[in-house]
């Protein structure tokens, strides 16, 4: 944050409906991460409006932002961002901890989501004992744990090899099939085509927004 201001996004106008699986594409510097940060309430736009589930998101103080993030959003990061001294189960349970949920209930629910991503047996393992793909699955389970409205995935396959990437995308598609709204930021074309809608950003504006025929990741595995 220097003193020189730089407008990264210059008028983004788009709407995502419930249940959509959208990919946001663009080269680096196109503003896709900034967009995701604004959607994720990690950053605020200088102007414009953002409405999530009919709730206007504006003038958030840190506390409210934290509560909204907890309630509405699940994050999936390129580098997984698991806490390395906590077991897979405890990582998944963390959003629930910040909701103030009791431990027993938390463990039940986290276990449920871990099983959903196929890692029930790995609940007690530390992230360092898991492969990259497994880590990302734990991160997905964590994002799902608080049952958010929207999942925001920032290059979810960026650190994974092709096979693992497709496994993760298969999981994401499955979650979308159950009706969850998901936004995926990516710069990989094949990943983008596994979503249902591709939004192309360039220099802070949308240059292309189209619905595509979804390629099932299963076919590649």
């Amino acid at each position, binding site marked *: 944050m220097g003193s020189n201001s730089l407008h990264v996004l210059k008028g983004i106008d788009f709407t995502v409906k419930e249940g959509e699986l959208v990919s946001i594409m663009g080269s680096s510097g196109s503003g896709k991460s900034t967009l995701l940060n604004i959607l994720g309430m*990690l950053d605020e736009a200088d102007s414009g409006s953002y409405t999530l589930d009919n709730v206007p998101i504006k003038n958030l103080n840190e506390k409210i932002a*934290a509560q909204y993030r907890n309630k509405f959003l699940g994050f999936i990061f390129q*580098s997984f961002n698991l806490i390395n001294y906590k077991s897979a189960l405890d990582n998944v349970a963390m*959003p629930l901890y*910040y909701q103030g949920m009791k431990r027993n209930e938390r463990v039940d629910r986290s276990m449920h989501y871990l099983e959903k991503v196929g890692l029930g047996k790995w609940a007690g393992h530390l992230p360092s004992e898991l492969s990259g793909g497994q880590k990302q699955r734990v991160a997905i389970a964590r994002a799902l744990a608080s049952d958010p409205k929207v999942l925001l995935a920032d*290059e979810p396959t960026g650190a994974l090899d092709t096979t693992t990437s497709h496994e993760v995308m298969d999981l994401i598609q499955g979650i979308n099939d159950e009706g969850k709204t998901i936004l995926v930021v990516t710069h990989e074309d094949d990943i983008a085509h596994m979503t249902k809608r591709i939004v192309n950003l360039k220099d802070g504006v949308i240059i292309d927004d189209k619905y595509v025929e979804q390629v099932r990741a299963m076919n590649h595995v």
Partner: protein
Amino acid sequence: MFDVERWQEIFETIRMNKLRTFLTGLSVASGIFILVILLGFSTGIEKGISSQFEQDAASLIFIRTDVTTKEYKGLNPGRRIHLHLDDYQNLSRKYEDDIEYKTPLYTIWGGQVNYENQTGNYRIEGAYPENQFIENESMVAGRFLNATDVSGVEKVVVIGNKVKQELFKNEDPVGKLVTIYGINFKVVGVYSDPGGDREESRVFIPLSTAQRSFNAGDTLRSMSYTVKMQDDFDQAVALSTAMEKSFENDLKTKYSVAPDDSGAVRIYGTLEEAKKIYTLIDTIRAVFWFVGIGTIIAGVVGVGNIMLIIVKERTKEIGVRKAVGATPASIIGMVLQEAIFITSIAGFLGLFLGVGLLELISPMVDSAFIKFPEVDFNTAITTVLILILAGTVAGFIPARRAAHIKPIDALRNE
């Protein structure tokens, strides 16, 4: 604070970072340890010095004479000055209102005292009854001298506890006869003295009896006065000083002693000395606190520093926590609680080590100026409070820094 989850988190981080926690703890523990030891010794010094003063009344003025060292008004040096009973009476009359207790003294150093087959050499003091209060004697058995003993020139003696132990062993001495230089004296009492053995190996007989028995006429060896306690200490010191000056002048004038002859008439006032010593004690205590607090500050800065590094190291983790819904308050709480926890545990460890060491060495330290160093309960509580405060201060700046971490910066892909 009583959230089990929070504690689990703290134990987890501590377990993962043993060395870091150990080093942090060490700086705090040694700070508290040093503070406790210093405070213990300051108490010890205080007690040691106070016990020096308890031997006698705190406001004592003691007068004795010796030989002149200077030629004055045609008189040669080397003249021995003898005090007389009328000197005592004159001085007593002059300051009647300000004097609390008074006694003239005739002393025999190392006089021989016998009881049956037992013999010992003790200091023999011819005195007045009020000497009991001047010397701070408390009776173990029988009574002290009284006015009748003095006026009747009775051959009675009050012996110290040490004398009793040496001459009488387990026998009750009251009513028994002892001989001093072959003269029979009846024991009427046994006293104990806060000054211990040295002060208890004396015997007191009536002044009149002493003067007659040892052919002293009406001469005295010395005189003791105590000054009435004034409203405040400084006033008492001033009065005591004025009296000392006046006594010295009167006696030097009467016996034609040069005003600057410091040997012939010697006057010693404990109040003035006491004032100096108490100022010294206060200074020592202040310095010890200062050094101790300084050490703790160094420890706290160390903890703060390490917590800052911890926060820096955990930037990413804190970013993740915030992304999944941690409020700033919960982040501050987490860091602060860890800091307070580490300082408290380490501090208590230092406190216990310090107190333990003092307990261990305390019985061995019993010299004139340091006696049984220890920390009292209040001091311990004070250090504990300082500790917790220190932990809070040490944790607060890093905690706030942690709360201000922006998740986007923390999570930016490396």
